[in-house]
């Protein structure tokens, strides 16, 4: 309760930046595993990216995998990927890209063996070049988006924050793709959408933290930057936890429904990426973006001067194990927790 109580009142004083080595180890391990898996195992791209035909049909005839394979053999499609869904009540058959006529014959064959009508099947047919086009557009959108975000955050916050945010974002994207690579889940257009959402979410989360940092920087008076970042993160910690919770609840609901309800495969594909991405996004704004910003800013002349002066003051003081703590303790009375009057340069009223 006391932890909850302190969390609740925003009075925790975790040294997030001081724990950056731990974060670094965690993040680099995750990144390494992801990159290795991406390099050697790659991604299981759905037919939307490489072209192909997929048929989904109800299966009143109760056809098994063997039956379907046999029915497709005359068409030379015996190596199609055949899946039974929903306890064999549904069939899903996939092949490589086919000529229009072959594709039609394929759909008819599957419908016949499943004992259903062609008009009751769901078919996805994708030409071999279409996926390349989607990917191209998505990458273009990504690049333009990142450029726009860097400009916007540089203007509204500052450019080092923009690049720290982008670093955290890249971290989240690599890990999400890594999870897809390791688990072998199919990457579909729905996944891409989900990943684009993560893009927004990850930055959104980072922006909330940095906005607080900036506010505290403006209010602060001769406090090391690291301490400001730490204080800001502690202040928004409860918000981070609550927001992750309220974001993960609907997504969890999607995952649950997607796994248990028939015909909700798209939802499942979508929800998995979101779940991983939101979790990574919350972690990375604390564990990647903020420490990175703190370390980066501490190198600036203004902030090194402050740190040097504070170190001189506390030279005689007994130094406990934590490195970032003593100046924080020293500085605390001088920081504006909101109790002291705000400085005159107030941005909003």
């Amino acid at each position, binding site marked *: *309760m006391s932890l909850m*109580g302190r969390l*609740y*009142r*925003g*009075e925790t004083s975790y040294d997030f930046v001081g724990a950056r080595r731990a974060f670094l180890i965690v993040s680099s391990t995750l990144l390494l595993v992801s990159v290795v898996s991406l390099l050697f195992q790659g991604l299981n791209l759905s037919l939307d990216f490489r072209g192909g035909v997929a048929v989904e*049909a109800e299966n009143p005839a109760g056809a098994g995998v063997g039956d379907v394979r046999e029915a497709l053999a005359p068409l030379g499609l015996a190596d199609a990927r055949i899946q039974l869904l929903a306890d064999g009540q549904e069939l899903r058959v996939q092949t490589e890209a086919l000529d*229009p006529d072959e*594709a039609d014959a394929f759909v008819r064959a599957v419908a016949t063996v499943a004992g259903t009508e*062609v*008009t*009751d099947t*769901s078919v*996805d047919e*994708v*030409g071999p*070049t*279409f996926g390349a086009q989607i990917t191209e*557009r*998505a990458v*273009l*959108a990504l690049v*333009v*988006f990142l450029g*726009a*975000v860097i400009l916007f955050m540089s203007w509204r*916050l500052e450019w080092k924050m923009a690049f720290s945010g982008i670093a955290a974002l890249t971290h989240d994207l690599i890990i999400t793709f890594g999870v897809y690579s390791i688990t072998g889940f199919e990457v579909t*257009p*729905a996944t891409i*959408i*989900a990943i*684009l*959402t993560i893009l*927004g979410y990850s930055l*959104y989360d980072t*922006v*909330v933290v940095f906005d607080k940092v900036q*506010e505290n920087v403006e209010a602060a008076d001769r406090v090391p930057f690291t301490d400001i970042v730490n204080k800001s993160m502690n202040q928004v910690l*409860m*918000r981070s936890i609550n*927001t992750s*919770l*309220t*974001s*993960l*609840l*609907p*997504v969890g*609901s999607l995952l649950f429904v997607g796994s248990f*309800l028939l*015909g*909700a495969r*798209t*939802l499942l594909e979508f929800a998995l990426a979101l779940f991983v991405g939101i979790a990574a996004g919350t972690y990375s704004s604390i564990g990647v973006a903020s420490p990175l910003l703190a370390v980066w800013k501490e190198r600036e002349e203004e902030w090194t001067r402050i740190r040097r002066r504070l170190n001189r003051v506390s030279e005689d003081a007994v130094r406990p194990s934590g490195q970032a703590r003593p100046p924080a303790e020293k500085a605390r009375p001088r920081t504006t*927790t*909101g*109790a002291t009057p705000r400085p005159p340069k107030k*941005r*909003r*009223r």
Partner: protein
Amino acid sequence: MRRHLVPLLVLVAIAWGGVAAALAFGVTPVLGLDLKGGTSVTLRAPDGTDPEVLQKAVEVMQRRIESFGSVQEPEIQISGDYNVIVQLPGVTDRERALTAIGQTGELSFRPVLESSFLVSPLLVPGLLESTTTTTVAATSTTGADDSTTTSTEPATTTTTTLPPGVDPETGLTIEDDPTKEAWLAEYAEDGTVLEVYHVGPSQLSGADLDSALAGFAGGSTSIAQWQVQLDLSNEGAAKFQEMTKAAASYPLGDVRRQIAIVLDGEVVSAPQVNADVDPNVGISGGSAVITMGSGENQQQEAQDLSVILRYGSLPVAFERDQVQNVSATLGADSLNAGLVAGAGGLILVALAVVLYYRSLGLVTVIGLSVFGSLLLLVIGLLSRYIGTTLTLAGVTGIIVSIGITADSYIVFYERIKEEVRAGRSINAAVEEGFARAFHTILTADTVSILAAVLLWLLAVGPVKGFALTLGIATFLDIVVAYYFTKNAVWLMAGTRLGHGGWFSIEGASGRPVSEGAS
């Protein structure tokens, strides 16, 4: 007091009243075909296709789909430089849909048996002036044999016995089968019927044509005219000779001397075989010229005709890029799953905020319902007036936006707490906290909106639908935060619900919420 109450009430009235009105007038979101079943086809024209040609192809498809019947709100759009996306909600017969749009039309040359054949009073005789100034000029030499192959069996023109396959309303054959006789119309550009032809079975198809080129040249007559030069394959040449020989056996002016060029059940042109063609020979040599006249209109006509002869009705040979066919049941399942997941997520979020934030949680729940109503209203209006549809990707976008919207409340409430801890009165904390929180919300939401706008502009396919709902939802989030949340919390702070721990803020009143001050 009024400063806070009025905007709040106005927004709630717009949201709830608007949704009630929308439901009453049937302005509800139109479901995309992945939610209600249907076929979506993405076609790709070869690189370097003229945009005008693409536009023409879209017009042709539009006409074909109209003739397809029973398609609710078909949608054809050009996407990017070379893509055409066709959406056919409710059409689950994939092969028929593909035939209707993707394939170049079936071109056939058929003997004319009769023209201005009237079955229906709809075909007013006044419309039946022949505007075809076209004639087939011969490039022929003499041959032997005199055999007319016309199997003319003029159908009964009585009103009672209609030939099979003829629509009694229009007097035209409904679905043209080139191997059979048919009653087909030639249309003017505005869609009115110029002339109705009774034509025989096809004797020559588009495959027999090697090329068709429009040009301006002197024909057999001395005056230079717009014309279309036909070159036939070896096989085609023989068929064509046979056909023209039969036609030439009729006197000039007889409709049976004409040859109908039929495309997709429409007569495109019906040129007459020239006077100088020997009925014993026909047009031989594998090439022919259709002369059109020398006017400017004729230039257009010649060019259009040559395009049709070359490509069938679609002026471009499209490739199927993507065909997505969703059965009605799968669509309904997806919709249900989306609704269940959305409702479940909403209830969970509502529970969590009420448990944690108590009376403020209640504000959040009402705020979410205002937000949801506005979202429904906006998407409904967009469906009605711009024709956007709500797809599965859109539904997931909405579900995701629940979380992002809830965050705006959380940022605000945590801010209030901070201000209260700093010793402000609760109303001052609300004012000051909101100003600060709104800055954060605005910054973070701008990033989301930026993402939505760019995705909408740059991405293709389902991503667009997602971007649209995400963008609208984020925008509404800002609106609701500014007009509803701030004012609702301020008003509540003045009531008993704002005190005694109901706000879940220690120090908001005398009684602390959790034990032990640090």
